């Protein structure tokens, strides 16, 4: 399995594991993601879920697969594989993947102030969104 596929699978597993949490934490009246925005799982992804009863990894049920497709926009960042390029000048290249993206994240502080950060990858951005108390500029108090 290539490096990229490993990451892709890990991302899907993480997203699957967090689905229940996301559903439980969803605020009442929350607006659903815009209709029509792509939410598909990358076709090369290997999707597994951890069974809530047995704790073991298994293939997802149809309903779980549908939930993954519908509820986890971050899955669109699941990287594909790099595509190699060659030019007659001798230059060689690669079409990159989502793994190389820089992410802007905004966190509203308790005092209402907006603090905006640029993160070097999706994992760091997701972590900041889900655990804003650990925002990089949070100062120690003792």
């Amino acid at each position, binding site marked *: 399995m290539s490096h990229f596929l490993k990451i892709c699978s890990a991302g899907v597993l993480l997203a699957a594991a967090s689905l229940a949490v996301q559903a439980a934490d969803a605020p009442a009246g929350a607006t659903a993601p815009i209709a029509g925005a792509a939410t598909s799982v990358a076709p090369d992804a290997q999707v597994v879920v951890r069974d809530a009863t047995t704790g073991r990894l298994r293939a997802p049920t149809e309903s779980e697969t549908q939930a993954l497709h519908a509820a986890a926009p971050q899955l669109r960042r699941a990287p594909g594989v790099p595509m190699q390029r060659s030019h007659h000048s001798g230059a060689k290249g690669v079409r990159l993947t989502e793994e190389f993206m820089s992410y802007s994240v905004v966190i509203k502080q308790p005092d209402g102030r907006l603090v905006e950060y640029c993160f070097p990858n*999706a994992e760091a951005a997701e972590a900041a969104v889900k655990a804003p108390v650990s925002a990089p500029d949070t100062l120690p108090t003792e």
Partner: protein
Amino acid sequence: MRKNTIVACLPFALALVAAASQAATIVVTSRDPAGLGFNDPTPVAPVGGNPGTTLGEQRMNVYKYVAHIWEQNLDSTVTITVNAGWEALTCTSTTAVLGSASPWNIWFDVPNGKPGTWYPQALANKLSGVNLAADQADDGSGFGNVDIKTQFNANLGNTGCLDGTPFYLGLDGNAGSKVNFVETLLHELGHGLGFTVLTVDSASGRRLSAQGTFVTNGGLPSIWEGFMYDSTAGKTWLDMTTAERKASAVNPLHLGWKSAAMTAAAAQVLGPVPSMKVTTPAPTGSGFYDYNTASFGSAPVIGQAFGQLATVPADPVNGTGCLPFDAATTTAVRGKVAIIDRGTCAFALKAKNAQNAGAFGVIIANNAAGAAPGLGGSDPTITIPTVSVSQADGATLKLVVADAVKYGSRGKVGAASDTFTLDTSRRAGAEGGRPLLYTPGTLAPGSSVSHFDVSAFPNLLMEPNINSDLTTNLVPPFDLTKSLLIDLGW
């Protein structure tokens, strides 16, 4: 899948954009479907110089505006291509992924470039004078050959997605309580154009191979690496091993951009370093000491005397300064600046105890290695200024206080004192004249060597924190962004 494509060819003659000779052309291509993103028909009122009357129009106008800023700053005979979309990105009521961007194609062995070195496609095209992607097969997406891929959050401001705080789509910088999309996009396109080491994984030090995978041994260097000089290692990333690059990425305040041009630019852009100037009658100890500030009490004022220094005795049982000061300590610190070791209790409590004892100020000496920490906490009853120093400087200052006593005159005990001032021999955000890259001591989320360090003052566009006081001017004496890109070959 490519849907309902909008192609916007520039230049875009927005009234607020000053006329200038255009040296590059940027084409923004939408991948949004009908009715969404750039095609969102929601009626909106023109705002801040953005004349669009639908949400989609205003979004595209900001893209064009920002693209034009970059056009004015870049020089290329090859059109730069940006693919853009608006998507449902991760968010909560108080946090949100605003968007993301990256070079989407990279090249090595580029004509007129350094051999065996990775370049982002837009720069590779500029150097070679041709569009290297022109004859390449698409990957099926319809935008596989573009220079830069971007996406931003279509739901921002909706319930459940940074509730009530949408992007500000005006072009005048008056974002108020909204998220300034111009600055966000300007920053992210900067990464897309090459402000990123990109092909080195800073967490591991590994480089990208010619096949596009990170490898522990070998791989090709990024064009950035020859400029990334670690003053501790005494060499650039280009000459480092994988392990050395990994270590350098978490070497705070010692990884800088090494070029004569950037050093000259930094001298124009970066201000002198705010510092405490300590004066002592003893032969040693006088000089500048770096400090950090607190979120409580009054702020230090440059040019203002801080006061005579005094040391609060260590209290390993209760924590230094954590209890109300006894009579001896009160006498020692009254009317002076109390140096207190960090630990056991809150910074604010230490400061309050010092204030109650009559101290005019507090210096918290860190209890761990590293730079002077910012001091969090809150107590509106604290009025005296509190600052922090590093553990090493704290130890030195305590020795200075003790040593000064021996150098009194005419029956007066010698004393050390300090003043808030500017150290004009150094630049805020530079080391040895070299603009610093962001290398926090631990590779925490957000860590990335592909930004200027947060110690830069004034703030720079390409710091990891996208600050609210930025302008859209990318050249000295306002910013260092263009200077760095010129070093790369732009």
